[in-house]
Structure formats: C-alpha cells, structure tokens
C-alpha cells in the first residue's frame, strides 16, 4: 500500500484495506479506467473516497437513487471527507444556482444521471476540473437489466464532454455479458477489471417452500425465537410489514418494528438508528430498508415471498453477517407466492399510464413504484411515448428470463448456492451441510451469540438532556 493511501485510510479510521480495495485504488491512482465488482458491504465507498482525496479537482459520483445518494453523502460527512454535495431534484433553483457557482470548492459531487445531462450542470462541471468520474450501481447501464436507467446510456458521451477523465464503475453483481456492456457504454479504454466472488460463504442460503401462507408466518415466528441477535424480515408489502410487526410485538426477547416508504421520514430515521444501536433488533421491512444500513452483526435475514430477480434477493440477504461470522438467510415462500410474482412480472403499465405520466411527469416524479420511476426516467431521457411502450414490452421478455433464473434457483436439485453463482458468473464454495436448503437446527447451533451490550434506558427529558448535552453534574 502506498504511504499516502495508508495515511488517508487511517484518517478515515481504518487499519487495513479489504480484498479488492487495494487493487482498485492503485489502478485508479495509476490513471486507469476501472470496473470493480464488489459484493454489497465490502467497502466500495473507500474505493473512490481515497483516490478522491488524493487526486486534484472534483470526484464526480453518479448515483441512480436519491436514497443512495443521501446515504453516501452522510457517510462521507461522518468520515470527514472534505466538502461533499449532492445535486439532485430535491434542491430548489436558487440553491442549485448557488452550488453550481461554487462547484469547484467541493471535493465530492454526487449527482443523478438525469441531472448530469442538464446544460447548466454540465457547463458548471466543464468549468471545474473533474479528475475522476465514478459510476455507482453501474449495472443500471444494462438496457435489459432489472435496474435499467435510460439516462445511464448517455454517460459515455458526458464523460467525453468532461474531458475524458478516468472512470471507475462499481457494481455489486455483473455477469460477464453485463461487464462488456458497461465497458463499451462508458467507453473504457483497456480497463482494469476487479471481480470479487459474489459468494458469501458465511451465509446459509435457506430455501423453504410451504403449501400455505399461514405456515410461512409460523416459520418466521419459530426462527425469530430460535435465532438470537438482529434480524431483518423482508416482506411482500407495506401491509405485511405492519401486520407481522403487530403479530410478533410481544415475542419474548425481541423488540420489533416495521419500516417502509410510507412511514414518515423522522420515524424511518429513528427506527434505522435504533436498529443500528440495538434499541430494536427485529425489523419487518420492504426493500426500502437497508440502503445505508451498515450493521455488521445482522444474524438473520428472511425474505418472504418469491423475488422477481436474483439481484433483488442477493442484495437483501447480503445484509446478513457482514462481520464475517455465520449468519442465516432464508427465502420462505408459499405455493401462492410463485404465481403472485409471476403475475407481477407479467404486468405491463397500460399505455394510458404512460400517457398520463408524459402529461405530468413532475407529478409522478416522487412515486416509489418502480415501473412509474422507469417511465419517468424514459421521459427525462427524451424517449417518445411510443418508444417507451415498445421498450416496456421488450422488457417483458427480459423480466420473464430473470424470473426463470429465480425459479431455477428455487428448484435447484443439487445446490442453491451453485445455481446462484452460475447466474452471476461467479465462483462459490462447494456444497456442505452449512450451505443451503432447509434451515437446519444444526446450522443454527453454530451461530454466534449476540453481544449483550448493556443499553441504558433513558426516561424523562431531564435525564435525556444530561446524556445528550453531556451535563452530568
């Protein structure tokens, strides 16, 4: 490790680089284009945070989701990484102008791909030296992938307009075919590719099917009793998160709550931080939860129902066992769940919805429906409604292919892990008793006991003020 890299690393409070980080940082600092495939939770932020501090000028980070952007900004601010700003649609005109006028004073600029192609933003960026362009969630560039964002297609052109600065593309999962698309679209030259294994050997990949929905719920209760330590239960719907949180509210030894996009912002923030500090240990959540939650000791992630893609599933279970200790994950579903998801993926937005969104794109801009978001993104990328309808129906084929991969995974006769690794073109560990299938008591017995941290409970505002403002006298 180079001395200046080590110095930055210590400044951010770390001792060592994790596998992949060293290689990627070295290649970026050497001026190469880099594609890094790092599983969630393996520290991809540091891969651009350190070069960004060492290189002159701005590090521009393209992030597809507002929530991801906020999360990265908070994380950078917490680590003291100089001046950080996020350019996104939530800023009003005056603030945007103020920031653009002083853009060169920022070290890290986060931006949504749609905003990057706006003339005023682009011209502010061309006036300020950009030395590194980071494309986070780079798989969004893959047209036929589940997370496709039309604006990502323009990133290659924009990079040229920004003086062909070096580019670092990061993603958690990318099969070989997608890696090629990323390289081509971003016009990478002789790129250095680091592909870590997607496999997480410390995770048990449980897969359990039950005839009835009720049995799924019963199984959740049994596992919550048997396993100790923090647990996330991904539910099918907002409604289900609330229902299960109420049902297990009095489960001995568990402090439950629910989390979804319909919960107001302040409550979401409290619950997220309670979960991190141990005030809550069981969260029933939709996929809205987890983006920024870097909690190492999650011992169990349950996924209820059948995911539409293996990418969704991989991302959800990836939140378990980040401390490297054994953790259990389980996809628990009923026979009905298979047809539920099959129905969901075959549903196309009606042309009338496309038209409605085109008439009032701003009105739909904050919807949390993935299909609506995609149509809004097409609109921002200047597709015609006809082109959108055509693209959407072509996506049907792709979605059903993704869903077939999920079914292959669920029905794998030999090893679920092997099926998952095949899908991601990655190597995984060989099947053992601690690998996959029905969650066994024998595996659960190997889980480490959670640390019993003594947590002080504060009651009364005077007591709370003493803690908060350090006035113990």
């Amino acid at each position, binding site marked *: 490790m180079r001395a200046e890299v080590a110095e930055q690393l210590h400044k951010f409070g770390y001792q060592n680089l994790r596998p992949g980080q060293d290689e990627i940082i070295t290649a970026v600092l050497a001026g190469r284009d880099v594609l890094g495939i790092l599983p969630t939770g393996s520290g991809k932020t540091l891969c651009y945070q350190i070069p960004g501090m060492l290189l002159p000028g701005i590090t521009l980070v393209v992030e597809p989701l507002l929530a991801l952007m906020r999360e990265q900004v908070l994380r950078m601010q917490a680590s003291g990484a100089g001046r950080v700003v996020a350019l996104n649609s939530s800023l009003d005109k005056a603030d945007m102008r103020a920031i653009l006028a002083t853009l060169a004073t920022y070290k890290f600029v986060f931006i949504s791909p749609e905003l990057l192609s706006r003339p005023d933003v682009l011209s502010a960026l061309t006036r300020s030296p950009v030395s590194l362009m980071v494309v986070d969630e780079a798989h969004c560039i893959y047209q036929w992938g589940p997370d496709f964002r039309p604006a990502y297609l323009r990133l290659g052109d924009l990079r040229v307009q920004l003086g062909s600065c070096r580019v670092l593309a990061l993603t958690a999962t990318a099969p070989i075919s997608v890696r090629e698309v990323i390289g081509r679209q971003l016009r990478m030259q002789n790129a250095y590719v680091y592909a870590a294994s997607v496999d997480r050997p410390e995770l048990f990949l449980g897969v359990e099917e039950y005839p009835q929905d009720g049995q799924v719920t019963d199984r959740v209760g049994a596992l919550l009793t048997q396993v100790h330590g923090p647990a996330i239960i991904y539910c099918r719907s907002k409604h289900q998160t609330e229902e299960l949180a109420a049902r297990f509210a009095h489960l001995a030894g568990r402090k439950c709550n629910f989390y979804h996009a319909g919960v*107001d912002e*302040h409550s979401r923030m409290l619950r997220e931080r309670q979960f991190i500090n141990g005030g809550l240990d069981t969260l029933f959540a939709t996929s809205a939860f987890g983006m920024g939650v870097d909690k190492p000791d999650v011992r169990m992630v349950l996924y209820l129902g059948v995911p539409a893609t293996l990418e969704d599933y991989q991302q959800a279970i990836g939140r378990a066992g980040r401390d490297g200790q054994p953790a259990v994950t389980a996809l628990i579903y009923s026979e009905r769940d298979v047809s539920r998801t099959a129905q969901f993926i075959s549903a196309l937005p009606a042309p009338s919805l496309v038209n409605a969104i085109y008439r009032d794109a701003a009105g739909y801009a904050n919807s949390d429906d993935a299909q609506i978001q995609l149509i809004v993104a097409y609109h921002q990328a200047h597709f015609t409604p006809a082109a959108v309808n055509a693209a959407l129906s072509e996506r049907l084929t792709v979605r059903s292919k993704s869903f077939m991969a999920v079914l292959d995974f669920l029905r794998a006769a030999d090893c679920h892990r092997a099926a998952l690794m095949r899908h991601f073109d990655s190597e995984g560990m060989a099947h053992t008793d601690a690998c996959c299938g029905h969650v066994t008591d024998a595996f659960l017995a190997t889980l480490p006991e959670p640390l019993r941290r003594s947590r002080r409970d*504060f009651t009364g505002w005077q007591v709370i003020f003493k803690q908060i403002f350090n006035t113990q006298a």
Partner: protein
Amino acid sequence: MISLDDILLLLLDDQPQRPLGLWGVITGRKTASIMFAGLQHQQLHYFGLLAGLSKPDYLAAVQRLLTAKLLQQTDEQVWRTATGRARCAQLHGMAATLASYDPELNVQQFAPRFFLAVQVLSEASYQQRQYVPLSADWQVQQYVRRWYHGTRAELADTVQELTVIFSQLHPATADYLAMLMIGHEYVGSGADQDSPLRRELALCDLLHTIESRPASAWQRLWGGRISLLPPAAAQTSAEFLRGASVQELVARKHRRISTITEHLQLAAIMGQQLPLDRFLSVQQQAVLATAWAGGQRTYQELLAALPGVEFLQVRMFQIMMYRRQNNAR
C-alpha cells in the same frame, strides 16, 4: 391515538361544503378558491396541518364518517349531522390540542432544523466532529451550520436556554420531544403513539414557548413567524393599496388578469385591508349587504341581487363579510 376521522369531523363544518375544500386547506394548497373555502368554513387555522395526507386516504375517511352517519351529504357537499355535532362536543380535549397548531409558526420547516441543531450541539458537547448527521438535506444542513456558527461561543448557554424552554412545556410534551431526539450515543426510542401530527403539535407547543423568549438562540433557529401570503401576491396587494388599478397591475406586471385577481383575493383572505370601495360603489355594497342579511351567501345568489358586476367584486364582498363574521366570533 389521534384518529384521522375524529380530526376531520372536528374540522368540517355544520354548513355544507365540498369535501375536497378541506383537503386542500389541510394539505396546504395556496389557491384563492381553496383559501376562500377555508375562510368560509373557519378552517384556515389548520392550513397545512396534515401536509402529507393523500387524497384517497382523506376521501376514505370522509366516507367512513358518512357511513357512521356523523356526516351527511347532498349535491357533493358534506356537513355534520346532529350525531356528528354531539361527537365533536366529546372531542373537546382533542380540539384543545389541535388549537396549538398555527400555520404561521412554520413548524414543518422548523422540525428537521430543530432535531439537527440538537444533534449538532450534542456532538459538540462531547467534542465529536465525525458523526452521521440526521438529515442529508442540503438546505437543512446549511441553515443549521450558519445558525451554529453564530451561536458557537455560547454552547453551554444555548443548552441551558433549551433546558429552560423545556421546563416550561407540559412535562409529557417535553418527555415526548426528548424521545424523538438523536444525539451523542443517544437514539430516541420514539413514543408508542408517535405520529407526524402528534410530533407537529408538540413542536408547535415548543414554538409557542420559544416565541415568548425573543432573545434566545432558539428564536434565531426558528426564524419567527411567516406570512402565508406568497411574496408575489403581497407585492401585488401593496401596489394596489398604493393606488394601482387591476388593469394597471396587469399591464405593469405583464401578468394575466386572472393572476392579479388571484393575488388580490389571497391578500384579502389573509387579512390585508383592501378597501371594498375600490371594488364596489357604496350603493352596490348596500344592495349586496341587504341580500347578505337575507341569508344569500353564494356567489350566484349575490350576483342575482346585483346583476352586471364581475366575479372579483362579488368575491371581495364575500371575503370581507366572512372575515367580519369570523372576527366577531
């Protein structure tokens, strides 16, 4: 638990009104027609109270009240039944709680600033510089940063000031607000019956206390009351008061006549003293006053009493009358 149905029943009127008028008021939609409905039905006090309430949720609640026969309906208008009025009388406790709300307190903007300010002071009390701020919002961060740098020299005083403010709150409100805070190695547990509305009302109580201590740093964080009148409308109304006619304003500001009349209505609804003589002659006012005294309240009825006048003239008369009526209460 504060139930939505109870709140809506309290806020709706004994006089018929279109249900979406109230929805527009409580979600903070600043158009002349919404604000006029709010004035007419004494609902402006609750402007923006439930900013996040969706239209379907609102209409579903109204439907439940109709089914429970607490409201009745004809011609797309709803109003309280006798049972509904009796139920309201039982809800006087909640009515008192809701009364602490005041749209001019600007509580929605204050909330994230307040909690971030507490966090900033907390971390500073432990000499911590690296922590995850509870809001990633650029505006909120900038605002609190500026406030903090203006306050920094007297950290202990600022904390002491907040302690005094909290000691003046109802103890349950103070405890509740403390349970929503985030600070150094402290994450509030939230309350069992937490809701955005309960939070908003508790913060309004806090703001009333802050308002009574004008010299404090917390007053500066709050920034004082805001005017509900949009700046453009305030400007139009000021120029009108200096003598410009509607036509002159249209020409001078390059705005459509509908925009100018919208501005003038908003200004009148929010309490600007626009002389009625500028809109109606004394004789015309007398005709309308007679009709009004005879129970004719709607635009159509008043226009029938005084054919040939324009919408704005009648609307200004109605606004003045409703304001007078509300002031007399």
